[in-house]
């Protein structure tokens, strides 16, 4: 047989075996990951629909297939393949070395002997045992996704999260239809279909009209009429015309926030929302040029009145009196566009105040509220601004106590060298970073200090160099090291 023929045969058989084992190895790994992914469509079958199970099966099968293909297509260098057999049969790299030597044109007699020896060994080994079956770590996790997939179809579908963005556009005719469909539909709200747009609760443009309740049912949960059920306006239907003329009782009631039941701070208590609704209903489907200045003036006045509620200081975001004045002046001059612009700015301020209140009040504690009141008393308009955030006796070193400059007095520095500074100050607890150089005699009275960290570091380097250069006899080395170790422990 020619040189290398037996080795070539061994390589091809080994390569085939390795590819098989790899295909299984990566196939199982792919199957495990595919099964994990398959859990998702089964869990969300309410959204995916009847395709959930086929999709899950496809993912699992696809994972296994991709893994197996990957394992089969991975390259197998001949030397590495032979190395597997070398290790399996303790051949001391005979086969891999022979393969390497085969490629050398200038090999000597010993190399030829090595190849011959390797081929002799290759003929007598059972290659099937050379490449063991290997299982990926993911194989142990396989039962978990299988179990989940088996159980999931018998469980109720996972409720879909509300991920749609709020709609700021005016309501279309299609959206208004359900509202006009009748009182029965309004009370018995159907579960929203998958295709329906679901708006965020706080941005929903709810109609808080009092729903007719001919059958004497309880108010539906979330019905805004519940806020007024114990008031004299509970059964009144709001009239926009009368609101423009006299102001709606509900709006006035909304101003008295303390007397209203707290329905988890429903958005309908928001001034901004009320005014937004009013302005929208005013502008919806109407050309601004057709809007009468009287109506707009009434709206602006209402907004101005609401802007003077307690807690909104002049000039702040809560005060939209300036915009109201600008709007009124623009109306006087017959400039509807500027009046509308002023109203929009006032609305923006309202919204900013609304957002601030909604974002902060739920989390504020008593201290914050107290600060706010203090701040108002101080007239600074920025509650708690001048109160330091340090308690009694707190502060950074070296200052302490209730020094109004909470960083404390500057420390007196020794000498003028800005780079190697010793600070004379109070002794504090903990590890000392300097040592006294004069402990006896006259010098004992001098507060003479050396920065020990730099000195010790410097001497430590010298010691290390001396040790490295063998300048210190071996017998003394341990003593020197012990000495420096003792210094560090201080």
């Amino acid at each position, binding site marked *: 047989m020619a040189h290398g023929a037996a080795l070539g045969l061994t390589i091809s058989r080994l390569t085939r075996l*390795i590819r098989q084992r790899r295909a299984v190895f990566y196939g199982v790994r792919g199957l495990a990951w595919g099964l994990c992914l398959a859990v998702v469509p089964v869990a969300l079958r309410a959204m995916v629909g009847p395709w959930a199970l086929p999709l899950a099966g496809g993912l699992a099968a696809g994972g296994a297939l991709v893994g197996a293909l990957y394992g089969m297509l991975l390259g197998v260098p001949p030397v590495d393949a032979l*190395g597997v057999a070398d290790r399996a049969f303790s051949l001391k*790299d005979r086969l891999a070395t022979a393969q390497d030597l085969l490629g050398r044109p200038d090999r000597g007699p010993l190399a*030829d002997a090595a190849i011959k020896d390797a081929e002799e060994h290759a003929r007598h080994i059972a290659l099937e045992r050379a490449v063991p079956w290997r299982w990926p770590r993911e194989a142990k996790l396989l039962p978990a996704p299988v179990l989940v997939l088996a159980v999931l179809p018998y469980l109720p579908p996972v409720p879909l999260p509300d991920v749609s963005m709020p709609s700021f556009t005016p309501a279309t005719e299609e959206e208004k239809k359900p509202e006009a469909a009748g009182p029965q539909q309004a009370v018995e709200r159907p579960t929203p279909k998958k295709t329906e747009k679901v708006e965020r609760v706080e941005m929903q443009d709810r109609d808080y009209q009092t729903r007719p309740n001919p059958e004497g049912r309880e108010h539906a949960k979330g019905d805004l009429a519940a806020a007024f059920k114990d008031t004299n306006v509970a059964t009144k239907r709001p009239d926009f015309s009368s609101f423009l003329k006299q102001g709606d009782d509900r709006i006035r009631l909304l101003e008295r926030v303390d007397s209203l039941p707290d329905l988890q701070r429903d958005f309908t208590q928001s001034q901004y929302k009320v005014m937004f609704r009013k302005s929208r209903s005013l502008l919806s489907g109407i050309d601004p040029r057709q809007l009468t200045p009287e109506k707009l003036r009434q709206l602006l006045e209402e907004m101005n009145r609401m802007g003077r509620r307690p807690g909104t200081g002049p000039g702040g975001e809560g005060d939209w009196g300036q915009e109201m004045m600008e709007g009124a002046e623009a109306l006087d001059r017959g400039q509807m566009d500027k009046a509308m612009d002023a109203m929009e700015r006032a609305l923006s301020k309202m919204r900013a105040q609304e957002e601030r209140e909604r974002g902060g009040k739920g989390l504020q504690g008593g201290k914050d509220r107290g600060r706010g009141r203090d701040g108002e008393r101080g007239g600074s308009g920025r509650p708690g601004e001048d109160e330091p955030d340090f308690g009694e006796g707190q502060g950074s070193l070296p200052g302490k106590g209730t020094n109004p400059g909470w960083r404390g007095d500057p420390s007196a520095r020794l000498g003028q060298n800005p780079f190697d500074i010793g600070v004379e100050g109070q002794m504090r607890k903990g590890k000392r970073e300097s040592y006294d150089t004069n402990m006896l005699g006259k010098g004992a009275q001098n507060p003479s200090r050396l920065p020990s960290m730099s000195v010790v570091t410097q001497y430590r380097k010298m010691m290390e160099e001396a040790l490295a250069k063998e300048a210190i006899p*071996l017998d003394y080395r341990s003593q020197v090291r012990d000495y420096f170790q003792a210094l560090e422990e201080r």
Partner: protein
Amino acid sequence: MTEERIEAFVRSYGELEREVHKVIVGHDEIVDQVLVALFAGGHVLLEGVPGLGKTLLVRTLAGCLDLSFSRIQFTPDLMPADIIGTNIIVEDADGRRHFQFERGPVFAHILLADEVNRATPKTQSALLEGMQETSATVAGVTHRLPSPFFVLATQNPIEMEGTYPLPEAQLDRFLFKLRVRYPALEQLNEIIDRTTTSHDPSVQRVMTGVETLAARELVREVPMAAHVRQFASTLVMATHSQWEEAPDITRRYIRYGASPRAAQALVLGAKVLALRAGRFAVSVDDIKSIALPVLRHRVILNFEGEAEGIDADRLLSEVLEAVEASFREGKEVFLR
């Protein structure tokens, strides 16, 4: 023909080992590694406390080989000329005087440098040229040393008073540094039996100088695959803390790593091991087997290593494990 040469080598090696063990009890590993160094063409530094048979081992080996043998007891007042030799004035028959080079004890095939660390560095360095170049230069004249030239030096690691540790340059010229340890209880009993009776074991000469040189030639012909060479190079590089792929323990404790001579020593030693086992090529296992004696005197610990009393053998074993794991990972056929 090749197979016959290898068989002859294996036979001679075995006979030499047996002859040495007629005198030396135990120390199988030491004897084996001394023979490996002999056939690899290197020198050996034997380190051990007194009385373990270091000197006896060298003398026995010299007795087994048909080679000249010198022994130098290194002392603090030993001078380089005492080792190499010196020019002396001689008077010929005509009454004319001229300088004549008187050869020192270094001119021998096997040189035992006993307690080499007791001599001054100047005297120690007199051996440098001989160990590396197999020559000695006196008064500008270079004299060739006999071939094969094989230095076995001993040193005592405990009595450090008045000693001069060998400089790194000289240490690097030793192929192996072997640590001679205490014999086991049974071996000690046998030593007592052999040495306290009238029985005087004698050894036979089993190899000549020419045969030794031929064996050295054969060793250098042993082929080595690229992946084995790569392993040896990686192992040497792994002792360098500056190497970007160096193991963590190297970065932590080693200041200077092994020199390229270490890689040469690894390969030559591994070739002898392969031949001794009757194999035609070097394996990774051969490199691993010879790694500690080759590397232990070639790495210099940093302050942290010295301060923590890190043993070079333990450190190198961990480096070897790290390199082997990395090497196996590279050859892994499944997870890539």
